[in-house]
C-alpha cells in the first residue's frame, strides 16, 4: 500500500502540472483586459480592466460586428450538424446491422479513408467546387457532410458503427417478426439507443467545423459570409499598430462555445475519444 505522504506528493504534482497547463489561458483572460502598454508589464491582471477591448473588438471589422460572424458560423454549424446526423447514422446502421454484397470490401475502403490525409483532396475538391460555382457559398461544407465525407465524416461513421454493433440484435429480430421494415428498425429501435454516440459525434462535428480554418479560408472570401475564425485573422492582418487587447479579447470570446460544450458534455467527450481513438 502507498503511504499518505506519497499520495499527497502525487496530488501536489498533478495540481502543479494542471496549473502549468491552464496558466496561458489564465494569462489570456487577464491580457484581454489590458491596454497595449500594459501588455508588456508583468502581472496577470491589469490595474484598471479595459472592458472596452471587448466592445471595441466586437466592432473591429469595419461595416460588420461579430454578431454577424457568429450568426454565420452558427448557421453553418447547424447545417453541417444536421446533415452529419442524417447521413452518418444511416450509413452506420447499414454497415453495422445489414448484410449486403461486397460489404467487407466497402468497409475496408472506409477504413482506408479513415487514414487518408485530407490535404491530398483539397486541390481537386477545390477545382470541382470551383467549376460548380460553389466558391463563396457554404455548399463546400454542407454537401460533403450530407455524403458523410466532411471534416471527420468517416470517423463519425466508424464510431457509430462500433456503437450500433454493440446493440443486441435480438431487438431487431422481434421487430422483424412484428413486420417492421429496415427503416423502421433504424428509426424506432437503433437510433434511440444510439443517442450517446450521436451526442459524441455532434460534439466533435461542432468543434472540428469551428476550427476548420483552412476550409473557411479557401471557400469563403466575402466579408459578409466570414466565419469567426476568418474575422479574427482579418483583424490580425489589417490593424496597423496592432490592438493586441482587442484581438485577444475577441479570440477569447471565440473559444467560449467550445468551452461550454466541454463543460456540459464532458462525459461524452472523454468516452468518445477513448473508444474511437479520435483525434482532438
Amino acid at each position, binding site marked *: 500500500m502507498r503511504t499518505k505522504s506519497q499520495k499527497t506528493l*502525487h496530488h501536489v*504534482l*498533478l495540481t502543479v502540472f*494542471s*496549473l502549468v*497547463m*491552464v496558466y*496561458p*489561458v489564465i494569462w489570456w483572460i487577464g*491580457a484581454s483586459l489590458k491596454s497595449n502598454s500594459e*501588455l508588456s508589464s*508583468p502581472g496577470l491582471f491589469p490595474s484598471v480592466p479595459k472592458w472596452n477591448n471587448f466592445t471595441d473588438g466586437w466592432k473591429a471589422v469595419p461595416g460588420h460586428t461579430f454578431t454577424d460572424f457568429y450568426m454565420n458560423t452558427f448557421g453553418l454549424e447547424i447545417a453541417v450538424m444536421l446533415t452529419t446526423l442524417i*447521413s452518418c447514422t*444511416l*450509413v452506420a446502421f*447499414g*454497415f453495422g446491422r*445489414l*448484410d*449486403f*454484397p461486397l460489404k*467487407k470490401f*466497402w468497409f475496408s475502403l472506409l477504413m482506408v479513408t479513415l*487514414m487518408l490525409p*485530407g*490535404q491530398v*483532396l*483539397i*486541390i*481537386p475538391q*477545390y*477545382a*470541382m467546387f*470551383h467549376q460548380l460555382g460553389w466558391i463563396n457559398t457554404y455548399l463546400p461544407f454542407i454537401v*460533403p457532410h*450530407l455524403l458523410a*465525407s466532411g471534416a471527420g*465524416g468517416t470517423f463519425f461513421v466508424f464510431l457509430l458503427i*462500433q456503437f450500433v454493433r*454493440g446493440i443486441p440484435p435480438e431487438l431487431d429480430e422481434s421487430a422483424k417478426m412484428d413486420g417492421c421494415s*429496415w427503416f423502421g428498425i*433504424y428509426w424506432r429501435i437503433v437510433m434511440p439507443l444510439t443517442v450517446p454516440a450521436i451526442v459524441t459525434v455532434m460534439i466533435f462535428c461542432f468543434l472540428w467545423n469551428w*476550427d476548420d*480554418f*483552412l476550409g473557411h479560408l479557401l471557400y469563403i472570401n466575402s466579408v459578409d459570409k466570414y466565419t469567426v*475564425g476568418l474575422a479574427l485573422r482579418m483583424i*490580425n492582418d489589417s490593424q496597423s499598430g496592432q490592438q*493586441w487587447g482587442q484581438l*485577444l479579447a475577441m*479570440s*477569447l470570446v*471565440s*473559444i467560449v462555445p*467550445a468551452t461550454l460544450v*466541454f463543460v456540459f458534455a*464532458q462525459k461524452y467527450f472523454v468516452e468518445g475519444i*477513448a*473508444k474511437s*481513438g479520435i483525434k*482532438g
Partner: protein
Amino acid sequence: MNRTAAAPLTEAKAAPKRRSFLKRWDAPIAGYLFIMPWLLGFIGLTAYPMILSLYYSFTDYTLMEPMQWVGLRNYTKIFTADDKFVTSVKVTFMYVLASVPLKLIVALLVAMLLNRAVKGISAYRSAIYFPSLIGGSIAVSLLWSNMFGVDGFFNKILAVFGIQGKGWITDPHTALWSLILLTVWQFGSSMVIFLAGLKQIPSDLYEASSVDGAGKLVQFFKITLPMLSPTLYFNLIMGVINAFQMFTSAYVITNGGPMNSTFVYAMYLYERAFSRYQLGYASALAWIMLLMIVVVAAVIAGTSKYWVFYETETGGRKRK
C-alpha cells in the same frame, strides 16, 4: 472487429443452396440504400478527386487557362530545381520528428500519473485536456504569437529566473520550436487514449511482479509498456499523419518565416495552389506528400512486429 462482421456472413453462406442469389444476404438492396450517402461521397468526393489530382499533377492546370499535359515535368522540377520544396520537407520532418515523440512521451507520463489518482481525477483531466480542446483554433495561434513575442508573457517568466529572453517567434532558430511547444501543449487526446489503455491492464500483473520483487522501473518496461504498445502504435501512426499536415499555426503565427524556418509542407502546398494558382504543380506536391506519409507509416508498421505486443490469450472483445 472483422471477426464480428464476418460471423453473419458465413452463417448466410452455410444456408441451404436452393435460396436465390440475392437471398444469401438479408438486406442486399436495403443495405446499399442505407450506405448510399457514404458510397456517393466516397466515389464523388474521395476516389474521383484522387484520380483527378493524379491527372492534374501531370498538367499545368491553373483554373483560368486550358489545361496542358506536361508529363513528368512538375515532378522533375520539384525534385531537381525547387529549393522551397527541399526546405519545406526538411522543416516538416524536423517538426514531425520533434513534436510527435515529445507529445506521446508527455501524454504517457501524465496518463500514468492520472491513472493512479483516485480523488479529483476528472478535475485534473479537464484542466489538462482543456488546451487540446481549443488548441486547433486560430484564437490559440493568436495567443501564442503574442505570448512568444519579444515583450511576450514567456520572456517575463524567464525574467523571473534571471534569463534574458528574445523574440522566440522572430528568431529562425527558435520559431519552429515555439510551434512544436504549441503542439505538445495539446497532448490531451493522446493522453485520454493512453488512460483508456492503462485501465485495461489487469492489476494482478503488477501485484504478481511486486511479489517477485520487481521495482517500479522494471514494471514500467516489462508490463506497462508492452501492454500499452498497441495503443502507443495507434497514437504514433495518427500523430504522424496529423503532424505532416500541420497548417494553421504555421500560417497564422509565423506565416512560414522567419527565413522559411517554419515553412512546413502544407504551407508550400497552399502557396503554390492558392497564392499562385498552380494547381498542377501543387497536385504533384500533394501526391509526394501522400507518398511520404505512406512510406513513413509503412516503416512504422513494418517495425511494429518487433515492439507491438498483442495479448492473445484473453481473446474477448475489448469494446462493449
